[in-house]
Structure formats: structure tokens, C-alpha cells
């Protein structure tokens, strides 16, 4: 019977992905940040990493690839869950046999696909625009494990946060610190340029490690020298991302189940009333 959930979930995910890739608004959402990032990185090409002759632009590309995995997976999951709880999508799932499990499998598929599309859009033009990257078979092996572990570490956390927020319009509370975290996670400049307390804080969260993991995939090994500890710290990356994964996978089912239990026609109607009061018409 769980095959029903798996089959319908994958179907839902693929349909939603197709919808996402054929909706102007969504396409804009993929392309706009990509173009901005590519322009920013191009402007950084002239500047070099202190102590090396390596271009900051080329260093930022893999960092951004890593950070965008965590950022997109977490914020998209959070956003979609809150929105789809408000508009009644979740209640529809609840009314179907295996609907909730199917919905979640669908969401994981959709978000993973969207995240993958986001990094492909960075990688493909990036490889042509930036010099000094070292691409071999290991690049892709590392990319795959960092991507998969990154999704597992951040997507369930997004689901937990999405379950806690009733109102999609209060999500700025999470988005702002998330932006701050991107700025201080060694994405646009090496972490070693930050005060040590900030370095410590950034290393608690997955974004720094995702960036580091992708740098280890795309950059020459010599550049590990400018990282903390002068190494790519693969085991530490596995450890921190693994810890977030375990926390998310333990926490998410509990929180999601509690959230789903509370969904009913009247709770959706109450949120609809509130939303209609906010937005006339």
C-alpha cells in the first residue's frame, strides 16, 4: 500500500516540476537570481584571494552552488508548506488515502528538482565564464554526495519551519536571518576574513559546509590552504551535514504529523477569512 504513496507522490512531484518549468513567474524566480549572481561573480573576477593569484569570481562560483542548495531547499520547502496549508492543498491530501505521505514524497521530489535546476543554471554558464576550476571525475562524485546530503540536511528543517508558521506573510522572520547567514558563511569571501566568533557561528549551520564541499569539488587542491585548518575538512563536512540530517529526519515527522492532525475544513476556512481580510478581494 505504501507503493500508492510512492507512485502518486512521484507523479505529483513530476507534474509540479513541469508546471514550475512552464510558468513565467517561476522561470523568472530561477533566472533572475542566477543572472544577478553571474554578474556579481564576473565583477569579482579582477580581485584575487589574498596570498594567491586565484580569482575571487572563480572561488565564489562553487561556494554559491553549495549555498544555493541549502538556501533553496530550506526556503522553498518552508514557503510551499505554509502556503499550501493556507490554501487547502494539504487538506485535500489529507482527504485522500495515503494522501499525506504522497504529498510529502511529491514535495521532496519537487523541491529536489527545483534545487537541482537552480545549480545547473549556475554550473553550465559558470564553467564557461570562470577560469581556474579543476573539473574531473571526482568533481561530479563530490557534487553528487554534497548535493544529496545537503538536501537531506536542509529540506526536513524547512518542513519543520514551514509547519510552525501559520501565516505565509510572517516568513520574513526566517528569511532575514537566512540572508544574514548566506552573507556570513564564506560564500562571497573566505570565512577567515571574518571575526572569529562569526566564524564559529557560521560553522554551526549547513550553508558554510555546503559551500566548502562544493569548493573541494571544483577548486584545485592547493586552494584548500586558504580554508580554516588549511584543508577541505571532508569528515567535518560529513559530520555537520549528517547531524543536521539526523535532527531534521527525527524532528520533521513529529512536527509534520502534529501539523497534519490539526488540518480540517474549518481551520482552512479560518485562515482563508484571515487572508481575505488582509488582501481585499
Amino acid at each position, binding site marked *: *500500500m505504501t*507503493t*500508492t504513496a510512492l*507512485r*502518486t507522490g512521484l*507523479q*505529483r512531484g513530476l*507534474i*509540479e516540476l513541469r*508546471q514550475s518549468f512552464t*510558468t513565467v513567474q517561476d522561470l523568472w524566480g530561477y533566472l533572475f537570481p542566477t543572472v544577478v549572481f553571474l554578474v556579481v561573480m564576473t565583477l569579482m573576477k579582477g580581485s584575487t584571494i589574498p596570498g594567491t593569484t586565484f580569482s575571487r569570481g572563480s572561488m565564489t562560483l562553487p561556494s554559491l552552488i553549495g549555498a544555493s542548495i541549502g538556501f533553496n531547499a530550506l526556503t522553498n520547502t518552508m514557503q510551499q508548506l505554509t502556503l*499550501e496549508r493556507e*490554501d*487547502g*492543498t494539504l*487538506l*485535500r491530501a*489529507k*482527504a*485522500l*488515502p*495515503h*494522501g499525506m505521505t*504522497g504529498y510529502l514524497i511529491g514535495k521532496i521530489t519537487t523541491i529536489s528538482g527545483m534545487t537541482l535546476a537552480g545549480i545547473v543554471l549556475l554550473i553550465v554558464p559558470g564553467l564557461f565564464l570562470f577560469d581556474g576550476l579543476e573539473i574531473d571525475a571526482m568533481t561530479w562524485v563530490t557534487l553528487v554526495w554534497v548535493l544529496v546530503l545537503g538536501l537531506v540536511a536542509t529540506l526536513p528543517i524547512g518542513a519543520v519551519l514551514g509547519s510552525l508558521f501559520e501565516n505565509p506573510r510572517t516568513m520574513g522572520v526566517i528569511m532575514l536571518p537566512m540572508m544574514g547567514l548566506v552573507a556570513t558563511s564564506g560564500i562571497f569571501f573566505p570565512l577567515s576574513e571574518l571575526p572569529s566568533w562569526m566564524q564559529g557561528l557560521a560553522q554551526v549551520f549547513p550553508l558554510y559546509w555546503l559551500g566548502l564541499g562544493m569548493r573541494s569539488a571544483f577548486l584545485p587542491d592547493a586552494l584548500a590552504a586558504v580554508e580554516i585548518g588549511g584543508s577541505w575538512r571532508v569528515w567535518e563536512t560529513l559530520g555537520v551535514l549528517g547531524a543536521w540530517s539526523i535532527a531534521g529526519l527525527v524532528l520533521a515527522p513529529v512536527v509534520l504529523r502534529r501539523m497534519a492532525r490539526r*488540518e*480540517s*475544513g*474549518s481551520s*482552512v*476556512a479560518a485562515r*482563508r477569512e484571515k487572508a481575505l481580510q488582509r488582501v481585499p478581494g
Partner: protein
Amino acid sequence: MTTFGQVAVRPPHPPADRPALEVRDLRMRYGSHDVLKGVSFSAAPGEVLALLGPNGAGKTTTIEILEGFRARSAGEVDVLGTDPASGDEAWRSRLGIVLQSWRDHRKWRVRELLAHFGAHYTAYRQPWDVDELIDTVGLTPHAHKRAGQLSGGQRRRLDVAIGIVGRPELLFLDEPTAGFDPEARREFHDLVHRLADESDTTILLTTHDLDEAEKLADRILVLAGGVIIADGSAEALSLRMSTTAEVRWTRDGQRYVHATAAATAFVRELFAQYGDEIEDLEVRRADLEDTYMALLRTFEGSA
């Protein structure tokens, strides 16, 4: 609608071994506020029940408990042989729920959405053929539109289609025709008759439209103040309330109206007195609305 008006007469239901729905002394309390104070009723398989009552009487709460979406405070509930509080996925597959939609699945196309929802039931039984279902609810010209592009009435038909795609044994309809125009309402009523008669679906609906309740339901339940204050067919209810009938006639070109509890005796008297002078005679029994208002007044008077 493909089969219009072919089901005017409803055959009597055979006595069933087990009711599709049975509620005994259902209670629901929020904090110190009692919403349901001991609700009891049952529905035989294939029966159509309308739940009427003023706003805040507990209609939605009752339905949500039966759907398994809400935990009750006390009482016994049996829905298709299962307590909804512990209903599994196989049980869920036998229920149909018509939800009030707002803007969910806006990007999904009608046909795609119904096919996707239908796929959830294939492990249990053959769901409706998607094109047939779309035709039945009258959405064929809109099958490839996105749900977000449908009008309010079309969206509501889609809600109904989603509710029945898994061929449910028991269907819940919470104010199904709110926002329908008269034609759409008429078509919807035909569809409900077909479901009840051809598929023997048990239906529980809430509505504010008394005319609709009278047309659709075998039995009407009136919920007020957290209890069922009346349970019976529209005729039975009006007899129970022994409300007055209205007699209208014309004599010498003049129109007369008289309200009486004993219409037959009054009309006999009228003819005895005036004979052939009486024209355009009309006797109108209390309709469901009169009965309903009388019930509520009696209830409020005693409460």
C-alpha cells in the same frame, strides 16, 4: 449532464444489516464551551441525509468528526464500521469529501488533477474514468484549463468531482451549492440523485438552502444548540409540527386568504356556504421553511 431527470422516483431502501453511519451521544467541548451536547443519529446505506441548523449549531464540527479530521470529546461514532478516530487508509478510501476550495492546485489542469487524485484509489478499487467524470460534472469544455482559471461555479463542480473520483460509499458535502446559479444547482441535484440511486452512495450534506434539503434528502436532521431537535422526512417534520395551512380562493372577483390548522374542514365549510361562487381554490401546506422556523422557535422557547 448526460442523464437528465431520469431519476425522479427513489425506490425504498432495503433494510440494511448495519448502518453506514451511526452516532451515539456525540459530545464536543472547546474549553468550557459545549458545541455538541449529545448528538445521536444514523444513516442506512444509500440514504441521503441533510443536516440543517443555524450557524454555530455544530454542523461543521459534526461532519469533521465523522470525516476523521477532528477528535471528539465523548460519545460513540461508527462510520462504515470504523471509528473515525482510528480509521486507516483503506477506510479513508471509502469516503468522499467535498471540500470548500479556495485557491489550492491553481496551476493544475482539471483533467490532470482528477487523474492524479483518482490514482490514489487504484489499490482499493477502480476509480471513475476521468473523462466520464468530467462529463458528468459538466466540465468537458474546461478539461484542459488550469483550476485557477475556472469560475466559482466551475471550481465547485471540480470540488464535487474530486469528492467522488474514488467512488466513495459515503460522501460528505458541506454546503455543496453555495455560490451556484439556479441551473448549476439543478444539475448538481440531478448528480446527487444519480449517485444515491445508481451507485447507492450514502450522502450526508449540510446546507442553508431548505428547498435543496427537501429536494435531495430522504431524511432531514435539524441541529440546534448542540442537539438534534428533529429527525425525519420533510413530510414527517411538517406533520409533527402540525403547522397551519394557507387557503386562498376568489369569490366575486375578490381574493381571500385564510390560515388554518384544519384546512379540510375549512374548505368543506367554504363550499357549503358559497358553493359554485368559489374559484381559484388553493390549499398550501406549510413548506419546509415554515416547519424549520417553527421547530427553531419551539426549541428556543423551551431552551
